[in-house]
């Protein structure tokens, strides 16, 4: 007997031989015939919000958490439509993406993921109490080691730091720098100040010292609206917004001369799309050509800094109105096409099925670079397995 429910499963995926473990994606054959990939945006989720971190917190901060909870600058909530992908909830019923075993069986194995870069969306960076934020960050990184990196050798991770308290952030970076499985330091989508500002330079200095990349992942803030014109009304607007927010951060990083001060620094834009990169470079160069007197510290055209220092992940990839326009987009990127990294965003609602992540079929060499080569070169990971 096979039951087709009047109401489909609401909360958890019902595993059965014909559907598990390929709940994520419809095509087993495609995944098994194409080369392995590197996924640069894979989420390890904290079940029970931060309850997963309780075992890793000191008694002092456990009490704080139990008594006051997490407190971030409030305001800015929208009713959403989809939440986490419903089929990605582990059989335990816990939050999607919260158990390494299920991530492995539902995603890493069937989709031939050679390496996955973990990006936990913890509340550490947005805590109003910076000491508590630092404690949450340390606990989150310990949790990543114990429950993700140790059990699964294909995983790499982002160091969670309290970015708004750079001294505490640097201390956490130094604590993790000896573990090569931590490959980058994580910023929110919209830090309290534009990312190039002096406040954050100690973090970049430490990243350069240890060869760590810097990422800015969409969403997350210190309470600021997602637009330069205040709070929008609908989650749809909130979900377009990261593309604009990341552009502001790139403008700031370039204009402030961060890449002149830290010439080895590499910054990855995660989950912001990439279609805006060409016009941003054109506009940066156009405005700079007239206003360069204001920023005499810049040694070259702004677009050149972008080409050397900025990477971007694929999801959510823009879907052009005409198929040939995707080719134009790649041409407009020019050398920056070598900085586009495949990312699924598993297990969020807007995640891309790896074999369907681009609106057109990519040429084989480009496909290899985006799915593997570009990330392998950036992170120093092995060539195609």
């Amino acid at each position, binding site marked *: 007997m096979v039951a*087709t429910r009047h109401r489909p499963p609401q909360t958890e995926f019902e595993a059965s031989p014909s559907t598990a473990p390929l709940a994520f994606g*419809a095509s087993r054959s*495609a995944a098994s015939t194409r080369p392995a990939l590197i996924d640069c945006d894979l989420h390890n989720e904290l079940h029970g919000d931060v309850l997963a971190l309780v075992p890793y917190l000191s008694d002092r901060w456990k009490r704080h958490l139990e008594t006051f909870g997490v407190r971030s600058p409030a305001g800015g909530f929208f009713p959403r439509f989809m939440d986490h992908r419903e089929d990605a909830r582990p059989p335990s019923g816990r939050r999607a993406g919260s158990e390494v075993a299920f991530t492995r069986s539902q995603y890493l194995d069937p989709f031939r993921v050679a390496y996955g870069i973990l990006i936990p969306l913890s509340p550490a960076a947005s805590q109003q109490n910076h000491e508590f934020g630092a404690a949450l960050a340390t606990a989150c990184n310990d949790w990543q080691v114990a429950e993700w990196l140790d059990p699964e050798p294909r995983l790499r991770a982002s160091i969670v730091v309290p970015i708004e308290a750079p001294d505490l952030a640097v201390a956490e970076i130094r604590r993790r720098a000896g573990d090569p499985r931590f490959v980058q330091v994580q910023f929110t989508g919209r830090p309290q100040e534009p990312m190039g500002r002096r406040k954050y330079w100690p973090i970049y200095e430490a990243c350069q010292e240890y060869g760590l990349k810097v990422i800015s992942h969409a969403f997350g803030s210190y309470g600021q609206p997602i637009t330069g014109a205040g709070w929008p009304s609908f989650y749809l607007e909130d979900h377009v917004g990261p593309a604009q927010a990341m552009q502001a951060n790139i403008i700031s990083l370039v204009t402030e001369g961060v890449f002149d001060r830290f010439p080895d620094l590499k910054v990855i834009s995660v989950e912001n799309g990439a279609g805006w990169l060409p016009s941003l470079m054109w506009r940066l160069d156009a405005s700079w050509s007239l206003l360069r007197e204001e920023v005499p510290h810049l040694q070259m055209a702004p677009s050149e800094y972008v080409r050397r220092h900025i990477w971007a992940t694929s999801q959510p990839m823009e879907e052009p109105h005409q198929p040939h326009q995707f080719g134009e987009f790649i041409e407009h990127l020019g050398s920056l096409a070598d900085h586009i990294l495949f990312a699924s965003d598993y297990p969020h609602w807007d995640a891309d099925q790896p074999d369907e992540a681009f609106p057109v*079929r990519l040429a084989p060499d480009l496909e290899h670079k985006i799915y593997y080569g570009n990330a392998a070169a950036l992170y120093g990971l092995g060539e195609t397995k």
Partner: protein
Amino acid sequence: MDLDGHSVGVFHVEGEYYALLNWCPHQGARLCEGRLWSGLESDVPGDYATRTDRAVIACIYHGWEFDLRTGRSVCEPERLRVRAYEVTVEPDHTSDQDGVTLGRPSRTNATARTFPVTVEHGNIVVDLRRTPVSGTVPNGPRNLSEGEIHHTHIPSEGSLQPGGTR
């Protein structure tokens, strides 16, 4: 249920039966595992008119809505649809159960097949023991041609067929 090697989802909503190919034309997700929602229409901002007679399935991946009756995309009904099947309910004289027949209009009944069905506790129960089952889900859009946009693509031969209309 399986029809010609394709997974098809059958829905029983407000006393009506609907059937859609279990394959979202966007990224190939198993569409029918998404949630059922009322149709939602609006004439002015702030107005939310739910239409239970126009139920939609929202894909489990990105929430793309498809009309259960026609398979057409709510956003882009003219250019995007998932294959809809005609569903007829008829008494099964060999047992006490009713049968659900899936078929595609404008084609011979060669593709239609009747499944015994009962409704128990709000679930449609389809008995497949008496029908051969190949047990596969349709392959994703592996036959994409160079430069083709995914979301205009429908797998196998379904793209040019009119959807089932009830």
